[in-house]
């Protein structure tokens, strides 16, 4: 019972945390806490197979799937906790609490005898919990087990159908993309080459820091548009001021050693010229930036 009394408060707190944290990722992590604790309780309750399954399948697979989708959807698209449906929150809490109270009142009416237990001499787990479960699954529950296979196949096919997007036009090949780029360049003057990577010529080389143009202004095309949309791009112009400090730190070396990075600098500067003149085509450029 020690494990239970240790774990139960943790689980309840973690579960309550799910209700209140703003970020979904935190909720997922709290759920992982609950699940792993549950796994341990399973072990305590003499269910070693479920202990393993709980950790491998639930915590390992299902919860990872959650996180995966969270990443796809946007990891920090946090929930606003302001309720939109009038009275929903109050009613939910009221109903939930009454429900809990009634359940608990009901449960306290029941007295259970001493637990029979599974392990031990003549217990159900004799000869191994996994073997005993397998015996049950493939004898008494074999039909349900087979039906589960149909369910899983259906789920797999369903997920594929839902995730599938029909291609409406033929996939553009490398040649077609190149031709399109050149056409865009001639017609609209879109930048022809690859986009500048973030952090180039900047104070930081992190992905959320825009590259700096030769005149010291940030290059918007150098940051992923997802970051831009989230507004988590570092303010480049504040960083731009750091350039002087950097020069000061580096001393004469940089200025007198143009040869080492001369080629790269030359190409980069020509690119930045283009980017500067065509700064308003940023969207297109960012699309390309994602390609990298």
């Amino acid at each position, binding site marked *: 019972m020690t494990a239970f009394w240790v774990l139960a408060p943790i689980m309840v707190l973690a579960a309550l945390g799910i209700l209140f944290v703003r970020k979904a990722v935190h909720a997922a992590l709290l759920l992982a806490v609950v699940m792993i604790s549950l796994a341990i309780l399973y072990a305590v309750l003499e269910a070693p197979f479920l202990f393993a399954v709980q950790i491998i399948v639930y915590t390992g697979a299902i919860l990872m799937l959650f996180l995966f989708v969270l990443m796809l959807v946007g990891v920090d698209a946090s929930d606003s906790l302001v309720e939109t*449906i009038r009275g*929903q929150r109050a009613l*939910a809490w009221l109903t939930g609490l*009454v*429900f809990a109270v*009634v*359940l608990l*009142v009901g449960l306290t009416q029941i007295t259970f005898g001493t637990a029979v237990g599974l392990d031990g001499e003549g217990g159900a787990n004799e000869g191994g919990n996994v073997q005993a479960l397998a015996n049950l699954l493939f004898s008494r529950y074999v039909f349900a087990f087979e039906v589960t296979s149909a369910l899983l196949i259906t789920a797999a096919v369903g997920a594929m159908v839902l995730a599938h997007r029909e291609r409406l036009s033929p996939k553009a090949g490398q040649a077609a993309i190149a031709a399109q780029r050149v056409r865009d360049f001639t017609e609209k003057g879109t930048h022809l080459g690859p986009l500048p990577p973030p952090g180039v010529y900047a104070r930081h080389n992190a992905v959320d820091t825009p590259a700096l143009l030769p005149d010291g202004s940030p290059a918007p095309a150098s940051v992923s548009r997802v970051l831009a949309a989230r507004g988590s791009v570092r303010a480049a112009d504040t960083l731009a001021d750091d350039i002087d400090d950097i020069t000061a730190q580096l001393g004469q070396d940089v200025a007198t050693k143009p040869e080492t990075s001369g080629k790269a600098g030359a190409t980069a500067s020509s690119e930045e010229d283009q980017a500067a003149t065509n700064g308003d085509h940023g969207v297109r450029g960012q699309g390309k930036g994602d390609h990298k």
Partner: protein
Amino acid sequence: MSTQLLLTAAADVEHHIPVVAPAEADGAFSLLWLIIALPLLGAAILLLGGKYTDKWGHYLGTALPIGSFVISLVCFINVLGRDEGDRQVAQHLYDWFEVGGLDVGMDLLYDPLSAMFLLLITGVGSLIHVYSIGYMAHDPRRRRFFGYLNLFVAAMLMLVLSENYVGLFLGWEGVGLASYLLIGFWQHKPSAAAAAKKAFVINRVGDMGLGLAIFLMFVTFGTTSFSGVSALSAGASETTLNWIGVLLLVGACGKSAQVPLQAWLLDAMEGPTPVSALIHAATMVTAGVYLITRSNFIFELAPTAQTAVVVVATVTLLWGAILGCAKDDIKKGLAGSTMSQIGYMMLGAGLGVAGYAFAIFHLLTHGFFKANMFLGAGSVMHAMDDDVNMRHYGGLQKLLPVTFLTFAMGYLAIIGFPGFSGFFSKDKIIEVALTENLLVGILATIGAGITGFYMTRMMLLTFFTKKRWEDGVHPHESPAVMTVPLIVLAALSVLGGIMLAGNWIVDFLSPVVGHVEHEDPPLPAIVITIIVVLVVALGAGLAFLLFQKRDVPREAPADVSFAVKAARADLYGDAINDVIVVRPGSELVTALVETDRKVVDGTFMGGSGIVRGIGHGLRHVQTGYVRSYALSVLGGALILVLTLVAVNL
């Protein structure tokens, strides 16, 4: 059940009622089915063939009834050569339907009664077909007309040839349909369409009676064939037989335009004149007489029903005669006369064994002379640019000599001029009527006098008196294709009385209708005849005084006595129908509609309105927010748990 009943009933039978027990058809009689099939084939070809048959359709439509006539004639000659007891022949074509205990075969029965009818229908029918070739020559829908006529002939033949009441009913409905189609043949005229509808509806009332009679027969006897019913009828209770008889009479009233179902016949004159001649004078309207004569084995055992027939017949013969006096429309005058004459036939049929043969005899002679006169009227109309008002005729005997002469033959026959066919047939009916019931006999005699009056009036207004037609009208004699049938029919009108020679027709029909020893009338027969002739002469002379000696105004005078007004209004037949049936019916329907709208619809609309209101309110629960729904699910679970806890506590 029947043996004991049969024994007890057999003792009550006063007359010998012949049982229909036909022999199997052989020889010429095996062609019986062709008599019906030929005109039916014609109808099918003409009606289904469409415009492809326009060119030759009327010739085909005429040839096929003539073919039926030839077969009928052959059969008739054949049957004459047989013994009296061997003159009933049946032909089983196929099993029509078999449901439970009801087994109806498509059986044909040829006996002296059907023989007479076959000759009348196919003979007069063929003549009228020939006449129609000329009469309908300028009608663009002539082919269709012949198709309908053939359909009618086929149905009428089915009616008189069937060996059971169900087959008879088939023909009965068939002639009703053909009558409807032909009355409304000029459907572009609203009056014709309305007349057709009226005839159809009133006929349905009669058909309902006939249908009920057949049902009752099946319930009582378990069969509907003539042979079966005639064999078992003696075993049934008199009440049942009376009911069957009265219901048959209702059917006969509808078809034969007897009071109280008489109102349609005068309006039916909206149809083309050959139709009036064939259907509404010679054949179809006499189907009621056929029905009663054919069902003699029922009526002989149902005295109440028989009395009802006599009453209806007497009322009708006077009713029709009075109508005939007041009508200026030549066809309506003739229609009133038809009603009246069918009244005589019904009277004969209602008088029982003594009268059946004379009823049929009068039916045949009437078929000749009335068809003759209708066709003559058609010829006059043809000459007068389809004007039917007799007040616009006058002095036509020089201009239409053939029509005049043939019409005159018909006229003399119908008023019963001694020696002409109508003289023998009507005189016999009046004689039997006087023998059976003095009052009915006197009324029938008066009817004969009125007949003399209105027919003389018609004759005078049309062919004598001064000419009253407009200048633009140029009366001319009809072509030969129309006059030849007139001449043939005129000859038959004159000579039809031959059938009574040596009491032939009575003997010939006796296997069907039975035979009784002649009862002496209250007065010697010759005295009765003289009285009748005198009464007729009185009527004719009155007409002569009224119409020949005075000028006839072109317009019908309005300041006339109540009696004339009543007669012009069909003795208020339509008004009576209106008051008794139409108006209560329409009021009932209006009330039902109101009930339906207010009560029934109100209930349902109110109920649905309540449901709609509830739904309208409840739909706001459907917020679209899945979390609201989840909340209600949790609420439900809470209630469930609460219940469980409450139950267990």
